[in-house]
């Protein structure tokens, strides 16, 4: 977990079973392991009221481990984009008592949280656990384009091509870190690009 530098920088925890009957898990990649680890602490019958939405990697790793938890539903969308309409639908129809658990990459947690906030869930009542890559979802403050999976510092904006300093300044509304032009004064100045968010 990254050190806390700027207040808006999200802090993640460790999933823990919450009271209630309805539990919605959204995870990608290694986030599956956060769910299986948590399962050890869950009371009997916990997964009878649980729905797990898992975006697997191309090899389909961890799917069988999640199946073994025998959740009420297991849904395996190919990408976050394809999951989003269904997630919005679920949240619109949901009632108080639904608990949300987000695990995996920062991009997934941020975007799922964004949908949850729109539905009126307070971010402090969402269980989160960061697993796997530190890759960031970044908004270029100049052209407003979003670049996914940024791992370097500085990073190239995939829309306008500016070289951006990836800041810890995070927008919950956009579910993205802010990228600011690093050589605005002198474009010929090209600082070395380093792997910063492996």
């Amino acid at each position, binding site marked *: 977990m990254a050190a806390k530098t700027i207040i808006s920088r999200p802090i993640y925890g460790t999933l823990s079973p*919450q009271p*209630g009957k309805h539990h919605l898990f959204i995870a990608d990649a290694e986030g599956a392991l956060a769910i299986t680890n948590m399962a050890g602490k869950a009371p009997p019958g916990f997964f009878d009221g649980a729905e797990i939405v898992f975006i697997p990697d191309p090899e389909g790793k961890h799917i069988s481990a999640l199946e073994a938890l025998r959740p009420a539903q297991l849904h395996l969308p190919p990408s976050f984009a394809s999951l989003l309409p269904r997630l919005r639908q679920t949240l619109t129809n949901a*009632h*108080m*008592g639904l608990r949300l658990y987000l695990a995996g990459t920062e991009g997934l947690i941020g975007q799922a949280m964004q949908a949850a906030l729109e539905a009126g869930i*307070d971010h402090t009542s969402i269980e989160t656990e960061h697993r796997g890559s530190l890759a960031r979802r970044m908004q270029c403050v100049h052209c407003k384009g979003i670049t996914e999976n940024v791992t370097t510092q500085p990073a190239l904006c995939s829309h306008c091509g500016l070289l951006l300093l990836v800041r810890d300044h995070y927008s919950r509304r956009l579910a993205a870190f802010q990228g600011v032009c690093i050589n605005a004064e002198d474009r010929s100045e090209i600082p070395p690009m380093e792997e910063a968010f492996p």
Partner: protein
Amino acid sequence: MSTGTTKLDVVVSDVVPVNDLVTRFHFRRRDGELLPTFSGGAHVVVEMRDGDRTRLNPYSLMGSPLDTREYTISIRRDDVGRGGSLFMHRSVKPGLEMVISYPVNLFSLDLRAKKHLMLAGGIGITPFMAQTAQLAGGGGNFELHYTCRTASLGTYADVLRERYGNRVRLYHDDREERIDLDRLLSSQPLGTHLYVCGPAGMINWVRDRAASLGWPPETVHFEHFAAPQPGAPFDVELAVSGKTIRVGEQQSLLEAIEAAGVDPPYLCRGGVCGQCETNVISSDGKFIHNDHWLSEEDHRSGCKIMPCVSRFEGKLLVLER
């Protein structure tokens, strides 16, 4: 009054009996100016000069926050309490000059909520009078469930029904009407916040059910109307101010400290805000912790006390005050 709690000089502009137990009091500023704005759920602390005793009791503002020409509070008469409500009912008449605190809100609406679900018991209706007025003014989505002993003791039930129609549901104990709480809580849309004000038993019941039905604690707001409990007199040493005081049977520890000329901080005077927290330097005896602020561990340790509601029985109590 205490550090951080600024006073307002007011005059009682009206006293209106509401039913057998409840009376409403109206206050205006003595200088004729508007009163400070407040938000629904706020309370003021009313200073009562009853002979040589001064009582400071908190009461929720029940008027609309959109109208600050006057403040209104409603007080239920408690014949076996420590006497504050009886003083208000018997001795406070229009024209009397009084001192009240600026409003403080420890029970505010979370305006990010998609819906506000309110549960009131008895005189616990008062903060909701202001909150519903505030929400109705802004087109907010709310629903109020109000339990009272009998229809005639359903303070302001008629006013609320008239204002808000079936957004207000009434339950009368004498007709065996009960809130179907589990169903009510389980059928609320995501993004609902819950507010409960009433007797301690009701608050505990609602908080407990909400928690086990999966409501996150951040979405559950409550306000206790916990008055300080009377009890056996006891002696206290105040280490910092070097005074020894006696806390009378009908007096709270906080009131006794104030009567000795020490000016401790407070906001709620009901054991929930944490402002009056005081360190215990030494003690020999039993604490009667009545607060909802300190953790169980704090209570057991005997190192802290909330003087607004808690008492002590024993030989020695030294506080850092």
